[in-house]
């Protein structure tokens, strides 16, 4: 639009840009020392402008709106569900993770169809809700349920939606192309802000009416047709629906190439060419892997897993899967956790001595590197085995044991120094150091440099408990 400055990218926005629009009263209601500190954290993506309470006052309305515009991500953020379980999807500021950081980790939804017998349905919902994995101290789980109408019957769909909703607080995605069936389903969950799947070339007006009536976000489906996707988006936005999610079509086999090209081009169009009609979250549906000629369930699950993982890497903001197998879900949950970590944050933890449980003067002393993932893995293994011990964390510049040994960031000398600098000899009466199995080659030199005996630990810290059981307390040498 003429007269309006082109919007700045997140990298171009300075704290001053934000500060200028804040109340500038340094009231500290946000918890920060002053408005400038608050502005800096907003620009870093650590706080949002909603964290400034005074901005809600009428007198700041115009500043607030300018801030909203300034900080709006090129890929809109859409909220599905309500309350604690609500999921935020999209809200992307950059194409490349290394340019800033990705926000709102890709939620994973599992489908439940309305043709399942009641008991089977209940069991499936229970499995979906209960699946979890503790990864470096965090519980990873599935985020939403997609209820699909395969009976093509409003009553069946309504009763399935109702039954699922009664069993879980997870956000719901209601899937049907028939507005009548959609209306029947939505009536049972109208306060839960489900995501409606989907508006198409044929039903967009009726679906738009439902989205407006119930204030729900709406998926736009244009299978492998980006022009149609843009047409539908333009039409729906003009119609008054702005919380849209885009489904450009997912196909593992055939049409994988088109799938990956389309996801990539849609996102690049937003960031390279400022295409506002495509600036909405992307829905990927690896579940489509199940609609192939293949009959072996393991092969289908394998293909679905590959598709899901590829789409997490290629810009999907929300996924719908069918497999509930742990071997399929585990790598997805871990990968989406990983790729959404902040690449600007240091990859290391502080060096020093960590105390676990209530160690005594005869408790074991272990040593590891300060690479965050190494440390958290070791920490979680020690904790889950309830081991009382000292763990020395050596500064290896945030590099894992294997690479640190190879790159000489972890050496006999650095381990001897750590023992001395942290006065470990004052903490325990014995002189035994347990080194990581991947640092086994350093054991001789370490004994020489430190005067301590070295016990070679397991290559993977899951073996620490077993090692201690077999080798601790050590027999006198």
């Amino acid at each position, binding site marked *: 639009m003429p007269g309006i400055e082109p919007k700045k990218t997140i990298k171009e926005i300075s704290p001053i840009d934000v500060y200028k629009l804040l109340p500038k009263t340094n009231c500290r209601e946000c918890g920060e020392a002053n408005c400038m500190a608050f502005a800096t954290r907003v620009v870093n993506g650590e706080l949002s402008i909603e964290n400034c309470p005074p901005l809600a006052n009428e007198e700041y309305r115009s500043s607030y709106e300018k801030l909203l515009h300034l900080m709006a991500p090129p890929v809109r953020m859409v909220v599905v569900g309500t309350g604690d379980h609500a999921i935020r999807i999209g809200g992307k500021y950059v194409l490349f*993770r*290394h340019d800033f950081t990705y926000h709102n980790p890709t939620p994973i939804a599992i489908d439940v169809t309305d043709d399942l017998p009641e008991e089977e349905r209940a069991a499936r919902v229970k499995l979906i809700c209960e699946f979890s994995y503790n990864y470096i101290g965090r519980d990873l789980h599935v985020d939403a349920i997609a209820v699909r109408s395969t009976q093509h019957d409003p009553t069946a769909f309504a009763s399935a939606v109702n039954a699922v909703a009664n069993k879980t607080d997870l956000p719901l995605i209601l899937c049907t192309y028939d507005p009548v069936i959609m209306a029947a389903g939505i009536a049972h969950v109208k306060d839960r802000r489900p995501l409606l799947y989907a508006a198409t070339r044929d039903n967009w007006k009726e679906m738009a009416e439902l989205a407006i009536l119930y204030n729900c976000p709406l998926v736009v489906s244009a299978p492998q047709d980006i022009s149609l996707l843009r047409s539908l988006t333009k*039409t729906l936005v003009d119609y008054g629906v702005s919380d849209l999610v885009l489904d450009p079509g997912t196909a593992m086999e055939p049409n994988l190439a088109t799938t990956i090209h389309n996801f990539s081009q849609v996102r*690049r169009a937003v960031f390279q060419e400022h295409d506002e009609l495509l600036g909405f979250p992307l829905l990927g549906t690896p579940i489509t892997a199940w609609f192939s000629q293949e009959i072996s369930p393991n092969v289908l699950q394998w293909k679905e897993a590959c598709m899901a993982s590829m789409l997490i890497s290629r810009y999907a903001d929300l996924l719908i899967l069918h497999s509930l197998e742990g071997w399929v879900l585990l790598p997805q949950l871990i990968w989406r956790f990983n790729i959404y970590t902040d690449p600007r944050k240091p990859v290391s933890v502080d060096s020093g001595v960590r105390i676990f449980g209530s160690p005594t003067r005869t408790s074991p002393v272990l040593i590891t590197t300060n690479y965050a993932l190494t440390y958290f893995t070791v920490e979680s293994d020690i904790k889950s085995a309830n081991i009382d011990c000292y763990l020395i964390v050596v500064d290896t510049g945030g590099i894992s044991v294997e690479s640190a040994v190879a*790159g*000489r960031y972890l050496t006999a000398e650095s381990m001897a120094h750590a023992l001395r600098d942290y006065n470990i000899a004052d903490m325990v009466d014995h002189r035994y150091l347990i080194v990581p199995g991947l640092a086994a080659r350093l054991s001789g030199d370490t004994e020489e440099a430190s005067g301590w005996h070295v016990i070679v630990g397991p290559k993977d810290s899951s073996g620490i408990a077993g090692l201690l059981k077999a080798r601790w307390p050590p027999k006198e040498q």
Partner: protein
Amino acid sequence: MVDESRKGKEKEGEPVSIPSLLSLLSGVEKLEFCNFSMKIGDLEFWIPTGSFPVSTCAPAQEKTKPHALIPQTFSPPHEEFTGRIHEVTLGATRSEGGSRGKSLVIGGADAPPFVYTNKPPAHPPVFALDVFDMEVPLPKVLKSGLGDVMGDPAEWARLNVKKFGADMVSIHLMSTDPLIRDTSPADAARTVEDVLQAVDVPLIIGGCGDPHKDAEVFTKVAEVAAGERVLLNSVTLDMTQAKTLEGVAMAAKKYGHAVLGFTGLELNKAKELNRRLYEYLPPESIVMDLTTVALGYGLEYSFTIHERARYAALMGDTELQHPTISASTNAWAAREAWMQMDAQYGPRELRGPLWETLNALTLLFAGIDLFMMMHPAAIRTLKDTVQMLMQQDAALPDQIAHWATMKI
């Protein structure tokens, strides 16, 4: 319309004041302006509130709601890249001075991987399978598929090529490690010769990581494999410190091999190493290993550094315009790949190979040109996927287009 008779009472061209305008308009129901202009700031709108619900889906003005689809078009973004990845040839046929059945070219990319239909990779990624020159501890799932080839690198290489479809074989001369068996460069050279005899695919020759020993081994191997254009895995900045880099690079040059520069997740180090190598070797003889970390143990660092490197190279950073390699075998370092876990996480016979597969697929999208892999199912999936990614698709099958209501 303003009554014509009233118009003349005002002086021509003089502005009309608001009160007089209002008096002028008394009794008039409809007004038409001619040659009228005003600034938006002068206007005050009164919008009634309360009559429609406040919602995040702000209803557009009723009368502007479209009744039909508003057609829009799409053309892929126009991105221009000035940089191009060097092409590196691996392996040499008889006519090229070696004895391989065929040589392979990696690199050549001039666009981001798998984004544009009209810009497919210049050369599809290549897949090598690993062979060790001694018995090594391997996860059960990997070991069980190997039968009794462990300890027999030639037989193992044959299995990798004949049965598992490897494009290349990657030999790890682990036994040369001074801290393991400290076998001699001559022994290592014999192993390499055996493998060259057993298979006719190009080879990657892996050392033990010791900058002194590797230099001796690589120099010897380079000589006995003269003309075969093997990839020496790897040369490092440690070798510059140990003052052994020059010897290896010169041997590679003299006997016609390529080198793999290994650095640990740091682009400046990778560039520094390349600068050193340019003193001895043409860029067409250098491949980069920026480090592959296992999924769950830091794959995101590998993914991001490869995306950064490739993008910088395409944008014109000449010190990063080299094909990249990924040791996806490293995926097996993750306990989730090899460990027996609670039943809800499924059998490791599926979990492990999938782990390696997803590790490689992720880095495929970051632009990797050559993969070193281990599990047959992983290499097969990667090859199938690359093939699918490079083919011309037909129309989408209807049941996929309408998946939402299809029964499984």
